[in-house]
């Protein structure tokens, strides 16, 4: 049975190893899609709608086409088409410079006949609201109802009940490298695209389909990528259109979205509003849960969320609907459906515990079926100093009040089949690992090097890792669902092991030892039963002559683990005069399985916590009901965490077994509930709507006083 071996035997796996791309990234040498400059390259831009709902009556490209420096203009909407949200693509241009492209899109004339629109859920759900989807009565999908147990019997057993409404607004991904591509046709049949994507093969297959080409005549390259968080799968409208512009002009074209378009059309996390009624027994069991909720994913569906979440509730009924609004569509965003569900559930848990007069952590212990989280509660509580929390919420003295809270999360991240890889040993001792995955900032490139280096007794820097290119035809899945490491690592491991086996076979005659008796040491191969028999790595590989060893690998279920649990504790300080909240400390205890690289795993946890903090305290997409436009489609009014918001973060890699799993998503889940509960513990007034901004704090404190 394949295994990662014991921790004590690992030289590299599980250690803190700086990432291989570090040098290129700190010197500015790393080339992102945005940085690709091809000879003769043109710049593309897209004209987008500023109206939320309209019929297109006329499009006139002629002035734009006549502008010197403009090489192509293409129309994306046809007369008679409907525009359904701000930001929808109308036309695209390619020009000699980006400034000319900008000028050109201003010269495109578009006549529209505006239609009534709704851009907020309240407006969409109002009686007599304009109907914006023919297939949804009242702008709402059919309710998705689920029932388990007997909810009425459950409520009868309940000693206490809580009824509350929890809300999280739409959050946008804010990838710092906007979506975009550089497209170049080698000839009419061969297309190369540099794509800012989480899935090079997904982009390849889509473009091959769009242009009716065999897949092996489209090559997609993603050397480095500036953030995706779930929003960068497939080429999108901009990717297909830039390839078209490149084809028409016969020149390479770069087209990156503007910051504004990135907010409007490149995806978002749907909102959530849930009305819950829940009951618990006097001995502290949640016994009944009744939830009716909705959210919006824009004009499309996809506004699901987890409810109830992680804790065991025997009797429950849930009802969810999607609400349509004239706004750009949602896309998967870091743990889709989980952070918002976790915020509501963890708030509810604290509210129930308080009614029972129970410590919220004790209440969780009773209701949490996860053994891993039970252990994490103990560890996290110690780290944060749980005993320091206010036993009476809001009881702290002074203007600035502190509080402590807890939240929980759960994710899959077990990976799957579908990755092909090759590990090659050359006669000069160099080693190459190639696979079609992409490094979106998680550090998979370095993880691959670590695994191969461990297997061969080399250093990670000795391994040349080639990822982010569909050219070699070694397919791998998109980097989503925290699946990359658990999908890729087992294949790399088995490929490296197979290559090592081959090398052993080749040098067995020379060492005069059975293959089963051979091991790798530090840049050497030796024989266990006779330590005098050793051969240096380069001498061993020198035997290969013209025949390099090149082996593929198999995904092996035994090497990875699904389902990870996480718990976080937050300490906050609330200024009761200004309403300002500072997060003092977060303790994140994250189930990580076998962390191939402890350093980059800690980075992932930090990053998840910080994104969760943004959602808890800062981030919200504002839609203006009057104009149908987004009011904060930029980086100053849409606020993401900056240096001042960063607390002390204690990221605990909770590795209780030796199987790999993915942790890209799970650490962003428990943060929201932990912070919201800490704010309550500090001020004694509960805020059930995120983000918890100073105005909400002051309003809540004022309402409490009144």
């Amino acid at each position, binding site marked *: 049975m394949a295994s990662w071996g014991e921790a004590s035997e690992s030289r590299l796996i599980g250690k803190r190893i700086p990432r291989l791309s570090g040098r290129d990234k700190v010197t500015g040498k*790393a080339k992102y899609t945005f940085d690709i400059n091809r000879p003769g390259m043109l710049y593309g831009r897209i004209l987008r709608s500023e109206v939320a709902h309209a019929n297109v009556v006329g499009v006139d490209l002629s002035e734009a086409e006549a502008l010197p420096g403009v090489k192509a203009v293409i129309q994306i909407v046809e007369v008679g088409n409907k525009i359904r949200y701000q930001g929808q693509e109308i036309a695209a241009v390619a020009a000699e410079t980006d400034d000319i492209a900008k000028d050109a899109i201003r010269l495109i004339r578009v006549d529209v006949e505006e239609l009534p629109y709704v851009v907020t859920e309240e407006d969409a759900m109002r009686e007599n609201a304009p109907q914006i989807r023919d297939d949804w009565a009242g702008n709402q999908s059919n309710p998705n109802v689920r029932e388990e147990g007997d909810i009425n019997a459950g409520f009868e057993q309940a000693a206490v009940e809580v009824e509350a409404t929890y809300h999280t607004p739409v959050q946008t991904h804010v990838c710092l490298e906007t979506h975009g591509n550089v497209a170049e046709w080698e000839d009419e049949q061969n297309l190369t695209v540099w794509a800012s994507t989480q899935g090079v093969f997904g982009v390849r297959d889509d473009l091959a389909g769009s242009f009716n080409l065999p897949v092996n005549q489209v090559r997609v390259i993603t050397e480095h990528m500036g953030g995706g968080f779930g929003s960068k799968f497939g080429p999108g409208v901009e990717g297909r259109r830039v390839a078209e512009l490149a084809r028409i002009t016969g020149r390479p074209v770069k087209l990156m979205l503007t910051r504004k378009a990135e907010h409007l059309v490149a995806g978002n996390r749907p909102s959530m509003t849930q009305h819950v009624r829940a009951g618990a027994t006097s001995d502290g069991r949640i016994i009944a849960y009744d939830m009716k909720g909705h959210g919006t994913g824009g004009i499309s569906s996809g506004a699901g969320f987890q409810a109830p979440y992680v804790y065991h509730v025997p009797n429950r009924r849930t009802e969810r609907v999607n609400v349509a609004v004239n706004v750009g569509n949602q896309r998967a965003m870091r743990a889709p459906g989980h952070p918002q569900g976790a915020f509501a559930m963890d708030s509810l848990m604290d509210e129930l515990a308080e009614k029972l007069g129970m410590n919220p952590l004790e209440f969780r212990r009773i209701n949490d079926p996860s053994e891993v989280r039970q252990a994490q509660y103990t560890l996290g509580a110690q780290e944060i100093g749980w005993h320091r929390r206010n036993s009476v919420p809001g009881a702290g003295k002074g203007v600035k009040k502190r509080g402590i809270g807890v939240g929980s999360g759960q994710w899959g991240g077990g990976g799957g089949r579908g990755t092909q890889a090759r590990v090659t040993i050359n006669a000069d001792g160099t080693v190459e690992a190639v696979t079609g995955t992409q490094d979106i900032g998680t550090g998979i490139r370095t993880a691959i090097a670590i695994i191969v280096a461990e297997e061969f007794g080399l250093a990670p820097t000795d391994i040349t890792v080639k990822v982010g290119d569909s050219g070699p035809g070694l397919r791998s899945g998109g980097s989503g669902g925290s699946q990359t490491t658990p999908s890729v690592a087992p294949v790399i491991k088995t490929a490296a092991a197979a290559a090592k086996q081959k090398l052993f076979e080749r040098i067995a005659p020379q060492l005069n030892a059975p293959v089963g008796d051979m091991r790798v040491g530090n840049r050497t191969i030796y024989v266990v039963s006779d330590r005098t028999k050793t051969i240096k790595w380069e001498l061993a590989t020198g035997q290969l002559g013209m025949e390099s060893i090149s082996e593929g690998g198999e995904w092996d279920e035994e090497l990875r683990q699904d389902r990870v649990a996480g718990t976080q504790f937050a300490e906050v300080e609330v200024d009761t005069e200004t309403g300002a909240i500072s997060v003092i400390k977060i303790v994140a205890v994250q189930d990580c399985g076998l962390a191939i690289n402890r350093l980059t795993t800690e980075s992932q946890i930090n*990053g998840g916590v910080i994104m969760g903090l943004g959602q808890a305290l800062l981030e919200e997409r504002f839609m203006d009901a009057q104009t149908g436009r987004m009011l904060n489609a930029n980086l100053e009014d849409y606020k993401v965490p900056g240096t001042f918001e960063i607390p002390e973060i204690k990221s605990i890699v909770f590795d209780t077994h030796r199987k790999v799993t993915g942790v890209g998503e799970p650490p962003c889940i428990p943060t929201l509930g932990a912070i919201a509960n800490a704010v309550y513990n500090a001020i004694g007034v509960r805020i059930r709507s995120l983000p918890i901004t100073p105005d909400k704090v002051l309003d809540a404190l004022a309402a409490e006083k009144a």
Partner: protein
Amino acid sequence: MPDKEKKTGTNISRRSFLKGVGTGTVAATVAPSVLIGSEKETEAQAGDAVASATIQLNINGKPYQVEVEARTTLLTVLRDGMDTSGKNIDLTGAKLICDRGECGGCTVMVDGKTVYACMMLAMDAQDTQITTVEGLADGDDLHPIQEAFIQHDALMCGFCTPGFVVSSAALLSENTKPTLEEIKVGLSGNTCRCGTYPFIFDAVKSASKKM
């Protein structure tokens, strides 16, 4: 920047447009200046003749002759510019992220002070010494802050990293032993979405010990 209203071939002003929408069905002829709305409107009028000039910029100790328009930003020159001999300058370390002085992704040093290259006109950068992230290392020897960023994993996707590296280097050149608070203030003009801040703080602290 002032928001100069543009009316390119339109018979409807922004005001009357805004009045018209959101009040039920209106038939509106929406001209492009309205449709594209808040794309940077301070740029040269579409179709106007734009003044250009050849200027010299000193970047990372090297002189470059470049032809620029009045509206061309320093960032555009660094990333997309060509010197008059037709060679791409290709200094793409500095990134355009927010395009309005909010994120620090385009940070470079001009005469030793950090500036947002997206907010500076190329013409205004004449007669200065410009240092980009590509110019921080001394040959193969990295600047201590670059080394510290690598060792502390102060980067993930790395898209914000050049901006943070330049800002951190500038901070350390003014204050060799910054406290955590001073680091937060010094880097408050930079944004990272991946959430590398804790390790950036560690990196700056550790580099400061070597300064």
